[in-house]
């Protein structure tokens, strides 16, 4: 029997047990995480919502634990960046106990990953989640028998209802001190090959050598580097041995290993899973298929956009609610109160910091609360419903062909759609794409042509009632997206991506989860946005006092004039540098004052949509793609946005 290597037991000075929730995408890891820690991370019905590690603390009985929610993982041999995040954490010994969360009804497909996790030599718990759906389709799992065969606790869980969570807690605690499970046996020489490589390894590793050896056998580059650093001979012997053994398989090693692991899993499940394969085609399945077919899917998409975005977010959120907040709440009630309150301050310039033209309260807070908040709230509500229904993966199937033309695959639809919620978050989600080329293209398109919810909402509210502007905006932004994608795909070298994606079932969104998610997002948004809005107000105030602001505006005036816009819009673009939505809100304000004609609205709307992303997104671009790429994108986007604005103006003026 194996023992835990010394450094794997809870380290000196470490006051808690580190528990990692690991599993395939969309199996409910985030839901389990929430049950264990009480901390909310995004739960959605599509693969790839979590792309980074999220930690939370909790007490299981008297034991303090730190629980980590990890990005979905198909196999320990990673094929995308977000999988690499999880893999690195596991291989670096970042978990004292691993909980493998599986979707119970897909246990036969997911058990091979359990076996890989066992190779890492860590205490393990297998959580059979989404047990309710498994029961509903008449699946029975003898989990006692499976536990016996695997040598680890197997717990049935329904995370969304909290069922089985208590058992899961107990199992985790039990595993902290339990002896390790035996390693599964792989036939046809695979197990022996792994053992031979393991015996060859002498260096110190943060995890069990068996897991390392298995990955060396599969030729994993990152692990080979790790071995090269740890071995006295630079890993040459291990590498040579692995190559020799792999050559003896008659098939590429990763494939051979996967096949044997699958067989071992089948063997373990013999007599454990009892199921009548369900062949009834539900109406949800039918609807799901239709949604991904052009004939039905395209009209459905247009309907969703029209009802959800235009009517609900633009008209209701951006129109009715914003009007009410602006006129009845702020103008009639709050602003006069504030003016009176600050009347006591004798110096007008200081007073202006709070309640003047660029005042923190009259501008910053008002923009955030009265214009952006209702719009963003409505958007997040709409978005959460769609997200939980499982509509987005269908959209990915529908758009795969179009995206192929842009050098992307249908997988990129998910980050693009998320971009409409928040481009910053979406830029991070480009990790789920397979190649660097796809990630760069997706990042560029997000920065250029995908307006985030706040911006989109404000712009929709602005355009509402101006059909010419709506159409122009749609054509210009979609055209830019397609054109830049098409050209970009031709300019950037690299191979064509292939498309592979799990399609989760269509589910009825749960009201509780939808509301919770909406509230969490609005809260997060608000906390992120308000300080920036206030900061912008302060900077504007300083600029205004010192005269720098007027100078900059005068400098911008010719640029704005070229676009055929009134000089006041110069400040909108400057505000846009802080956040695009802040700029858009400024535009909205100008429109309310009747300063813009339809052509100008269209031009300003298009330019601002394409314009530089907000500071947060830019920083995320730097984090994910590096300074060089991020700056190059910025250098491309800024003149490009103005160029398109110029073109739109010229065309519209010529036509009308």
């Amino acid at each position, binding site marked *: 029997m194996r023992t835990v290597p010394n450094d794997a037991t809870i380290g000196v000075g470490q006051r808690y047990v580190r528990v990692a929730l690991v599993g395939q995408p969309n199996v409910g890891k985030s839901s389990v995480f929430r049950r264990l820690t009480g901390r909310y991370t995004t739960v959605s019905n599509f693969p790839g919502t979590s792309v980074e590690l999220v930690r939370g603390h909790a007490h299981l009985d008297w034991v303090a634990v730190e629980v980590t929610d990890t990005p979905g993982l198909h196999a320990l041999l990673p094929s995308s960046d977000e999988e690499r995040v999880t893999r690195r954490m596991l291989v670096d010994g970042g978990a004292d106990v691993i909980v493998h969360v599986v979707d119970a009804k897909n246990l036969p497909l997911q058990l091979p990953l359990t076996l890989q996790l066992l190779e890492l030599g860590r205490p393990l718990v297998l959580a059979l989640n989404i047990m309710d759906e498994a029961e509903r389709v008449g699946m029975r799992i003898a989990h006692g028998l499976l536990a016996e065969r695997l040598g680890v606790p197997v717990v049935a869980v329904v995370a969304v209802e909290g069922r089985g969570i208590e058992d899961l807690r107990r199992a985790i605690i039990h595993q902290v001190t339990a002896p390790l499970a035996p390693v599964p046996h792989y036939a046809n020489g695979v197990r022996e090959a792994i053992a031979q490589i393991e015996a060859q390894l002498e260096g110190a590793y943060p995890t069990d050598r068996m897991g390392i050896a298995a990955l060396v056998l599969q030729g994993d580059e990152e692990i080979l580097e790790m071995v090269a650093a740890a071995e006295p001979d630079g890993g040459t012997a291990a590498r040579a041995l692995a190559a020799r053994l792999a050559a003896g398989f008659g*098939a590429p090693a990763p494939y051979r290993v996967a096949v044997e692991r699958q067989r071992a899993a089948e063997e373990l499940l013999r007599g454990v899973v009892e199921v009548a394969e369900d062949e009834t085609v539900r109406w949800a399945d039918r609807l799901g298929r239709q949604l991904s077919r052009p004939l039905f899917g395209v009209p459905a998409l247009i309907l969703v956009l029209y009802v959800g975005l235009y009517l609900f977010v633009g008209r209701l959120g951006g129109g009715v609610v914003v009007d009410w907040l602006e006129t009845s709440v702020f103008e009639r009630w709050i602003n006069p109160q504030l003016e009176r309150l600050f009347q006591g301050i004798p110096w007008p310039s200081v007073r202006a910091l709070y309640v003047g033209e660029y005042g923190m309260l009259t501008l910053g807070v008002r923009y955030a609360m009265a214009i952006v908040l209702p719009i963003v709230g409505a958007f997040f509500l709409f978005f959460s419903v769609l997200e939980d229904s499982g509509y987005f993966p269908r959209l990915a199937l529908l758009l795969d062909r179009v995206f192929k033309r842009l050098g992307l*695959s249908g997988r990129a639809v998910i980050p693009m759609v998320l971009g409409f919620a928040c481009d910053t978050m979406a830029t991070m989600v480009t990790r789920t794409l397979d190649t660097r080329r796809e990630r760069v293209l997706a990042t560029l398109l997000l920065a250029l042509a995908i307006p985030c919810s706040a911006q989109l909402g404000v712009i929709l509210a602005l355009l509402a009632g101006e059909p010419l502007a709506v159409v122009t905006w749609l054509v210009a932004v979609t055209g830019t997206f397609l054109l830049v994608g098409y050209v970009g795909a031709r300019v950037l070298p690299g191979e064509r991506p*292939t498309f592979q994606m799990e399609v989760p079932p269509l589910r009825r969104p749960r009201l509780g989860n939808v509301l919770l998610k909406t509230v969490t997002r609005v809260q997060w948004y608000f906390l992120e946005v308000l300080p920036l809005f206030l900061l912008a107000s302060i900077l504007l105030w300083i600029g205004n006092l010192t005269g720098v602001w007027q100078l900059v505006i005068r400098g911008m005036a010719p640029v704005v004039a070229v676009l055929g816009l009134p000089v006041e819009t110069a400040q909108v673009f400057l505000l846009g540098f802080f956040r695009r939505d802040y700029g858009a809100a400024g535009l909205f304000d100008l429109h309310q004052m009747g300063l813009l004609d339809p052509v100008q609205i269209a031009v300003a709307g298009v330019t601002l949509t394409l314009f530089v992303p907000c500071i947060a997104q830019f920083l995320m671009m730097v984090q994910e793609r590096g300074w060089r790429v991020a700056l190059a994108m910025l250098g491309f986007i800024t003149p490009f946005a103005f160029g398109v604005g110029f073109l739109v103006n010229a065309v519209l003026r010529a036509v009308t």
Partner: protein
Amino acid sequence: MNPVTWLRNGLGALVPRVWGKECPRGTPVPAPGPCADCDSVSLVDLAVRERARVSCLEDPGSAASIRLASAGVLPGTTVRLVQRRPVFVLRMGFSELALDREAASRVRVRREVGEPAR
């Protein structure tokens, strides 16, 4: 047996190098490839609702095939094609996997006998 198949089978018997081996019972001879055999067809040749068992993956060392393997598309897995357009969707147990033509054509399957194509 249709004449083309018959001819190809005849040729297959004559030129085993090219066709791999002879295919009995009039099954079409697959195009030569490393994992082609007489009873196996490519996943893209299945009809909607047809059920089959994976026999092998073409070019198993490639990243695309390894990704398929990680998703559970491995020899022995039973799959059912549930959609062909705009992309291929196969059902394995209770989960569904979407593949474009290129990925799907890497999967060679053997039709499950006795399964009526409903």
